[in-house]
């Protein structure tokens, strides 16, 4: 095992090279677009597995696979990457989703028979985005993180604006403006925190900015600027309004990456930047944030119940789920933080599966309106089954991995904020309503004549969701390996915030109404 091999840099560079290869592909080789894209994405996945093997799980709380090089010493900026257990699991989740998205895009952009230029450009953007995603989850330099945080907007903007639905330009612009506004306000705080630190050519390294003594008032402002950017990205109530529009208009693969992966950057940022850099401000703001998180859970779920558009519905369920993640992070117990970290991975799997399956439905019917479906259960049993399992993962059915993380968040939160935990668990009830009612409307009832000849899933489509469902079931019964990755970082985070852990007692576990 070569410990010096730059795993993370390789993970960043490989998809970039793939994107360039797709872009310059000679016209003779253009019918190989899909093969090239899928090959690169699969190689990336294998590379990430290699990184996992090189990662020492027994010390998952420390940053590993570290690389540090000066980038712009005049600004104090370094190219610094490294992952702890949370970062690595998110990287793995992301690179797992990309090949599936590539598979799903097969038919989405252009016909099956010919690989169009459109498809080629789209897949090149997906690979560029993948490189940014890996880099952002492994960035150990606040400035580097910020650069990626902003640069990610551009490929997604083009993916929505160039390849989306009828209102795509409106959705793309709204997405971009929300993202830029949050990011630029964060930029002021990024500079602000740098000036509080030791400065010098490595002044932006996260470890050099952790544990500073900052004037309390200033610290609160800096924290708020960072938090606002992350809350927009996550997205939390009340700055979530861009997400339903973006998810409704974006191509399905883009929605999968956007909601499943990119939005995690928000919660990931809260966990790895907001808490360590501004611990006392985080403690100061926690009560309000917990209230907002609970509001997000209930509000997102209620709005999901009221949606007529399938994609918007999934987007609102995510607002609800992100509420849980934020709740767990700001409850400051090791159980809840570990639960939130695991939740981020599971939500990627669950929402990814939901978006992909919803994409199959939409591709068959040509409509995103739930009312346009009905009685499909008998026509397409496999599709119905896959949808049901994905949906059940969204409502955290025991036996699926989402259950593990949700119960950890609720139990961990109960130890410190019983009321918030109890109210939040209402979200689970609402989740049952929106999932099962949607299933009922789409798949049960009499078979509609215009849907009677709908084809069931083909092999490619099955392969694109099967890994997600399999992983959710595996982690549902055997969460141990994944939890080993996220538990130690949660302890580290708690120490940085300076809060004593409240162990989740047996009574607390009973208190959550499962």
């Amino acid at each position, binding site marked *: 095992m070569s410990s010096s091999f730059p795993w993370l840099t390789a993970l960043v560079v490989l998809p970039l090279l793939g994107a360039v290869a797709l872009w310059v592909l000679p016209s003779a080789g253009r019918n190989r677009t899909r093969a090239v894209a899928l090959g690169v994405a699969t190689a990336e996945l294998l590379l990430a597995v290699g990184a996992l093997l090189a990662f020492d799980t027994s010390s998952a709380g420390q940053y590993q696979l570290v690389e540090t090089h000066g980038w712009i*010493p*005049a600004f104090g900026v370094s190219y610094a990457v490294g992952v702890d257990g949370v970062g690595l699991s998110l990287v793995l989740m992301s690179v797992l989703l990309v090949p599936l998205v590539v598979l799903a895009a097969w038919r989405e952009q252009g016909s099956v028979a010919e690989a169009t230029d459109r498809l080629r450009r789209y897949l090149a953007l997906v690979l560029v985005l993948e490189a940014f995603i890996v880099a952002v989850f492994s960035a150990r330099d606040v400035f580097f993180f*910020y650069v990626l945080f*902003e640069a990610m907007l551009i490929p997604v903007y083009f993916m929505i*604006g160039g390849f989306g639905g*009828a209102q795509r330009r409106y959705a793309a612009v709204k997405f971009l403006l929300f993202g830029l506004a949050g990011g*630029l306000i964060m930029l002021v705080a990024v500079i602000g925190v740098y000036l509080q630190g030791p400065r010098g050519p490595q002044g932006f390294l996260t470890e050099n900015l952790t544990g500073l003594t900052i004037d309390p008032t200033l610290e609160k402002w800096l924290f708020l600027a960072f938090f606002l950017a992350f809350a927009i990205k996550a997205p939390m109530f009340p700055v979530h309004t861009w997400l339903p529009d973006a998810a409704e208009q974006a191509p399905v693969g883009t929605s999968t990456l956007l909601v499943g992966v990119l939005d995690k950057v928000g919660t990931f940022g809260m966990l790895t930047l907001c808490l360590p850099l501004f611990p006392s401000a985080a403690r100061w703001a926690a009560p309000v944030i917990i209230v907002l998180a609970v509001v997000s859970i209930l509000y997102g779920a209620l709005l999901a119940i009221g949606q007529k558009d399938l994609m918007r519905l999934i987007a609102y369920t995510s607002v609800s789920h992100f509420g849980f993640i934020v709740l767990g992070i700001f409850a400051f117990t090791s159980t809840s933080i570990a639960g939130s970290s695991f939740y981020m991975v599971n939500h990627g799997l669950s929402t990814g599966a939901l978006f992909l399956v919803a994409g199959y439905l939409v591709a068959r019917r040509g409509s995103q309106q739930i009312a346009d479906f009905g009685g499909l259960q008998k026509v397409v049993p496999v599709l119905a089954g896959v949808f049901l399992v994905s949906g059940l993962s969204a409502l955290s059915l025991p036996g699926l991995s989402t259950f593990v993380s949700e119960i950890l968040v609720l139990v961990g939160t109960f130890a410190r904020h019983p009321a918030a935990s109890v109210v939040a668990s209402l979200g689970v009830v609402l989740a049952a309503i929106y999932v099962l009612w949607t299933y009922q409307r789409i798949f049960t009832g009499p078979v509609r004549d215009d849907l009677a000849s709908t084809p069931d899933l083909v092999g490619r489509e099955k392969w694109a969701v099967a890994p997600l469902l399999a992983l959710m079931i595996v982690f549902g019964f055997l969460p141990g390996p994944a939890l080993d990755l996220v538990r130690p970082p949660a302890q580290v985070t708690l120490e940085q915030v300076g809060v004593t852990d409240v162990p989740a007692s047996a009574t607390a576990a009973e208190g959550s109404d499962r």
Partner: protein
Amino acid sequence: MSDFTAPTVAWAQLSPVLIVLLAAVVGVLVEAFVPAARRRAVQLGLSVVALAGALVAVAALWSGVSDDGGTAVLGGSLIVDGPTLVLQGTLALLALLALLVVVDRTETGEDAFAPSASSVPGSEYEELARRKGVEQTEIYPLLLFATGGMLIFPAAGDLLTLFVALEVLSLPLYLLTGMARRRRLLSQEASMKYFLLGAFTSALMLFGIALVYGYSGSLRYSTIADATQEASGLDGLLLVGSVLILAGLLFKVGAAPFHTWTPDVYQGAPTPITGFMAACTKVAAFGALLRIVYVVLPGLDWDLSVVLWTVTILTMVVGTVGALVQTDMKRVLGYSSIAHAGFILTGVVALNQAGLTAVLFYLLVYGAATIGAFGVVWLVRERSVQPDGSAGAVLGEASHLSQWAGLGRSNPALALVFALFLLSFAGIPLTAGFAGKFAVFSAAIEGGAWPLALIGVLSSSAAAFFYVRIIVLMFFTEPAGSPEAEGAAAAEDGASGLPLDVPAAQVPAEQPATALAVEVRAAATTTTTVVGTEGFAAVAIAVCAAATVILGVAPSWLLELIGGVAQFLP
């Protein structure tokens, strides 16, 4: 009668200025003595040699200045220190790039300038000059004179030199503005506006100089700076005088509320000249402004900061909001240059070492992207369509935004490069514009001006909207008149916010038609094309694009280079 003692002149330190001004004088002689057929080649060679020579001279002076901090020459009238050299180097480089765009001619041998600028637009005489292929090679000496003035402007060590340099750089620009080959009336109107407003601010500035002289009894910067430290009971004179001088400089950089000329002049001037003006004038004027604020008036920062803060905020907001509602590419870039003046001002207001370095860096980065962007605008042309549908002659710039639709399909490389410049203007990470913005904003926060930085980032995010709108237009919108566009026009959503219909001016007035027919013909009379040229502009654009990428990914070496010498001589 005392004996005349010849002053000692440090010729070496003056060499960048002297080379350019001497070449300009020789250029005038070339006009008189070289036969018309060979003038262009001679003038071109002379100009390139002069500007490259100035660049070499700056490089030769560099090590000396970085060792001893620079010297005052001509008895203190000119100060050759670190910032002067950085600015002169930037100016020479940008002027050279701008020159490449200026000299370029289309395949049919047309440059951007009127064949006979003195003739009445549309007259028989003009038509004759056009048919004879007359060229106004006077533009080269004019360009060199303007550059010479700009080289002196930031180096000036007393107020009179400052004023003379201002006039030397302004007068050729007034002329050049009025010499566009196409849209002659618009060009002449722009020239007139620029001249009148410029003359007015020159007068204001001169009045300010007189008031400051009345206060301090000297025109020399260092003496004035000393005088501001002592209370004399004439503070009113000093305050009003310095505000008037600042107003004159802020007019040149295009800061609100002295910005009103910018969009009109940028639109009317020949596009290559707009690029030159937008980049180089801004560099020179900010250089002079920096010296005044940092060296002459630091004792007044308490009183003047109100003025500067107001101007900065107003400039950023006016530039951004103004650009949002434009439909002409050159006007969009004009308003964006106003917004950029605001961003640069935040670095000026920071009043610290980091601010000085940041502003110098920003000026180079902004100048490169600006020349590149106007170079692209110059290449994107209207082409008339013959009645039978075949392509006709190449006309003027296709400056209306709607005409840029679909450029990403027909000319992906050019559209990509233009998108790069726009992203740099927007300050997206990994472009040079981001490094520049980061530098000025961090300097401002360090200097305690964080509200300015906050307004700066907010207006940046608003500004990103219109830059990105152009990118969307180039890559995702079908060109007007194409079959796809007919259907898409109906489905067009409100996201782009603004109507982008083809301007009515393009419709030939003499053809009677129903409203519907006019609409169809408006789309059919011209198409948008990228004109083939001799290739000079392409070289300049490529260099600018390379600089934008390189300084975006690795700005460190240049920042260190500038930071090492960024110290004003008192």
